[in-house]
């Protein structure tokens, strides 16, 4: 099928405003969803689920949250990991302290708690911007790192400092096997991606982008910077909180504060920048890239070493991995500072005109 929108006329504003106005896109997205929900569970093995697919889904959700704040509202954050942690620990406490708390309830409450905390730590954004704000958000990161390590109530006085959950279920169905976990995460991600898309194409999204692009003009138009910025912090933290809950409950099962360290925050920021700031699709691309790259390097390096007759130690592999990871990030930023999403849309533009580009 040729990628053409000729002849697809819109007769109402509603038709023009739908998420995928081009017919072929709608079919493609439907195909991807069917593939993800039906084919993948049949094809993938346990390693694939545990090491790649589930982390990819959850981190996509988190990256989506970061992208709403950084990409759409223009507020740089280095504390994303902290909000995942808040979500995870809040969900944990709701889960074990409230009798009969369902999994989804705990996760959502974790998200709301994270949103509230996000608003508090978003207050500096009303006064400072850019890099000052980025560093200010580190306060959240270090504070919550410390709090979950030192304040024993949060971890239910567990002696090791690590917390764990088990016997997860959703409306009576168990969420235990890798396939079940995968489907659960996928369903959550699809719903949240839809919410994110709706917000970004609607009034609130325009407010965020207006603040990002030109805050003085936005205020003159009648957008309250306080509402726009804090709502972006809240929504972003909500997404991050739910992602944190999923990461702890579904992916790890048992976790320590280190699961949501500063490195996690950096990782999420990498995802949205490499994927594409201000693009829902970009969040997925970025997450896929960052999740798969280390696994790929991990497999490739010893193999390459063998090829040239050098055996690389495990430590050596991990150091080389960091090096190559860093170099690739820099390389990528130089080649395409607008991220994979830009490459994607350029490709689509080309495809629309193909084979007659002029």
């Amino acid at each position, binding site marked *: 099928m040729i990628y053409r929108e000729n002849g697809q006329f819109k007769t109402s504003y509603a038709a023009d*405003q739908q998420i995928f106005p081009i017919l072929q896109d709608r079919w493609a997205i439907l195909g991807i969803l069917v593939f993800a929900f039906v084919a993948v569970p049949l094809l993938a093995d346990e390693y694939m689920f545990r090491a790649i697919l589930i982390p990819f889904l959850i981190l996509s959700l988190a990256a989506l949250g970061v992208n709403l704040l950084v990409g759409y509202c223009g507020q740089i954050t280095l504390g994303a990991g902290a909000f995942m942690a808040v979500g995870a620990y809040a969900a944990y406490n709701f889960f074990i302290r409230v009798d009969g708390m369902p999994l989804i309830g705990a996760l959502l409450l974790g998200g709301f708690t994270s949103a509230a905390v996000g608003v508090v730590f978003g207050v500096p954004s009303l006064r400072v911007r850019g890099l000052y704000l980025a560093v200010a958000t580190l306060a959240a990161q270090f504070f919550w790192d410390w709090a979950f390590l030192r304040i024993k109530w949060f971890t239910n006085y567990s002696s090791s400092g690590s917390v764990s959950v088990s016997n997860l279920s959703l409306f009576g169905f168990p969420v235990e096997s890798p396939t079940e976990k995968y489907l659960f995460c996928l369903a959550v991600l699809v719903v949240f991606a839809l919410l994110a898309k709706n917000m970004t194409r609607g009034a*609130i999204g*325009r*407010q965020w982008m207006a603040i990002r692009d*030109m805050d*003085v003009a*936005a205020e*003159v*138009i009648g*957008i309250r910077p306080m509402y726009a910025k804090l709502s972006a912090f809240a929504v972003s933290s909500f997404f991050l909180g739910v992602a944190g809950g999923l990461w702890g409950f579904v992916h790890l099962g048992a976790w320590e504060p280190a699961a949501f360290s500063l490195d996690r925050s950096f990782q999420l920021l990498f995802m949205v920048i490499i994927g594409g700031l201000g693009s829902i699709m970009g969040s997925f691309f970025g997450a896929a890239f960052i999740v798969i790259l280390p696994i790929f390097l991990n497999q490739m390096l010893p193999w390459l070493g063998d090829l040239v007759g050098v055996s690389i130690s495990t430590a050596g592999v991990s150091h080389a991995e960091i090096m190559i990871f860093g170099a690739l990030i820099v390389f990528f930023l130089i080649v395409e500072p607008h991220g994979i999403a830009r490459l994607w849309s350029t490709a689509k533009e080309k495809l629309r005109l193909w084979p007659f580009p002029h």
Partner: protein
Amino acid sequence: MARLIGEVILDLQNVSLSFGGVNALVDISFDVREHEVRAIIGPNGAGKSSMLNVINGVYRPQAGEIILRGEHFRQMNPYKAACAGIARTFQNIALFKGMSVLDNIMTGRNLKMKANIFQQAFWMGAAQREELEHRAKVEEIIDFLEIQHIRKTPVGRLPYGLQKRVDLARALAMEPQILLLDEPMAGMNIEEKQDMSRFILDVNDQMGTTIVLIEHDMGVVMDVSDRVVVLDYGKKIGDGSPDEVRGNPEVISAYLGASH
């Protein structure tokens, strides 16, 4: 012309503004009547843009007051000004560069959209209805300013003249009672200027919008405005109809002298 110039709608009294010792505005008073086109002229650095910035609250004056429809304000703030029906365009176009023309103009409807964040997230009820209603209104403005062909283009890619027009469209989307235009024709060629003058007069005529205009092109100012105020080094040196101002010796020596 059918329009009737009404009562004083906006009145500035003894406004002074300074930035760390530099006096941008010194004891300035002037008024704007309903439905009129009021021009502010003066050499570069005379304080014209500062004047607009005081009116819609981007700058806070140290002294004086602003009386808007009989209500007294020590100073405005941009949000309050927007709610009171004051819109403006910017000298160095301040469009939202990452957004399409349509989205830029839709932001102008922001104050009129009431759906809450949950309705928007689920694209239900009020949110969906509002998107459609306001889209219809925005399309009217797009038609009016003749920019249908670029509605889906990101504004960053547009040429200068069209960006100016989108800037005006965004301000009009607010359906303002008072429209502040900061050099709407700067850097335009003669045809673009003619188009823009026509739009400004149409806005004034058809929508009854009061217009406060900063412009350097004397021909345009004399043609479109009802009354002119002249600033120089932050002081008011003339005020009156275009003809009166043209004849004012102080104004001639400060400003018009060179071009006549």
